[in-house]
């Protein structure tokens, strides 16, 4: 065996170099995730979406008050009607998938200016809007550097990792294929402490 290694040292080096890189990446990225505690709470977020088929809706936003998700409307601008709407989405780290919470847009269209309502679709949920979840995970936007030596080595200190939830070295990427028609940034709402029954 030793003789074989000595005779084929360069060949072994050639084959093992890319494999070493894979191993290094595995040790720094995949292993911490599998050793860490998986997130216990789902992430609730929204994305802005342009929908030419939807009737003009007033400007609205999602807010969390006393653990309850509400819709708050802004001022209606009849001169500049909007066709931008918001999709409500949940990221589940167990299966690393995103699902949409559909809600009735008509009831929002009928709302008064600067008023609030609780959506029936989420009224039984308890939401924590703090930046860090009770189990220590936090929401992170696309990274623009400062990821340490390994990040500098592998990704040149810059890496568009997309949106993710992170706790120490353990990170879960939020897939961005949930809707190709979304525009603008992903907006964090909170952590779902109690799910809808």
């Amino acid at each position, binding site marked *: 065996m030793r003789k074989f290694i000595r005779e084929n040292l360069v060949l072994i*080096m050639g084959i093992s170099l890319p494999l070493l890189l894979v191993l290094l990446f595995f040790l720094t990225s995949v292993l911490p995730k599998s050793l860490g505690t998986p997130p216990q709470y789902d992430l609730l977020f929204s994305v802005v979406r342009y929908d030419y088929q939807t009737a003009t809706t007033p400007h609205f936003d999602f807010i969390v008050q006393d653990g309850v998700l509400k819709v708050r409307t802004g001022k209606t601008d009849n001169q500049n009607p909007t066709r931008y709407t918001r999709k409500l989405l949940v990221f589940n780290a167990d299966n690393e998938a995103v699902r949409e919470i559909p809600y009735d847009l008509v009831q929002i269209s009928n709302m008064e200016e600067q008023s609030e309502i609780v959506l029936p679709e989420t009224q039984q949920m308890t939401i924590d809007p703090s930046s860090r979840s009770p189990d220590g995970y936090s929401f992170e936007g696309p990274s623009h550097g400062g990821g340490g030596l390994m990040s500098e080595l592998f990704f040149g200190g810059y890496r568009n990792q997309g949106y993710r939830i992170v706790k120490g070295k353990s990170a879960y990427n939020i897939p961005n294929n949930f809707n190709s028609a979304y525009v603008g940034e992903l907006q964090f709402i909170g952590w779902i402490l109690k799910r809808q029954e």
Partner: protein
Amino acid sequence: MSDRDEALHEIARLAKHYHLTLEDIRRAMAGPDMQKQSSGIIARLFSYIGGIFIFAGVGVFISMYWREFNSEARVIVTLGIGFAAYLLALACLNDKNYQRAATPLFLISAVLQPMGILVLLNEYSIGGDRRYGLLFMTAYMLLQHSLTFWAKQRTLLAFGTIFFGAMFFVTLFDIWGFRPNLTGAVMGISLLCLAYSLNQSRHSAISGFWYLVGSVMFLWALFDLLEDSVLEILYLGLAAFMIFLSTYVRSRAMLFVSTLAMLGYIGYFTAEHFANTVGWPISLVIIGIALFCLGSLAVRLNNKYIRQPV
């Protein structure tokens, strides 16, 4: 050590490496049987022409009816024919009379199978990142070529193994978002190591190509890494080291790429720092002299250290 002693040393090393006996060497020195050699060339020529005809026929057939084909037919005419060609090549290897047909058949399968896998994924996938499809294709081809190479020891299969292996890792590192210069540097060094090993083996015919690819990747990546940094000037030293290395490993392709890299860097450096000064015409003259010097140095290095005496 004189040239004669060096040649004897080399012959002894090769004989030891390939387990050649004195009888084998004596037979080889006596010269080949001319009649046998000429019939061998004709047989090889016909097998390659046959391969070209088969490939052209399949290609024309596919392109003529592509629009009329449904998904299943598209997969069958690409992946199906490719896999059939691969099986035929394996069968040919086992029959002494048809061994020469194996190379064209392996070539056909190496083109049609990857195409077929990509067609299959294109027809039946439900979307997603296309790079995963490429990764799957390269992984399949790498596995097929490496296992067949392991069993049959054909040079073409060694080429395929390295080609699909390199493609696999480059795609994987791209999916993981690695910086391209890190990927280039690692894959470049890896390919140079493999080329060196190939050169020491009976597959030396393909080592030149991989020296070329490896050195281009490595030098390109290193330039990208060092460009506009305080260590940029080290690139000149690196190119010089690569020229030295090319004489050590006796690679003309590596010498060519390294010389070109050095010339390119000198040109880049002068254009970057002296372009808008009065010294620019002088710089052009200096570049010209550098071109002459490096060119003649490369030729001398090639003649002295790389070119094998006939």
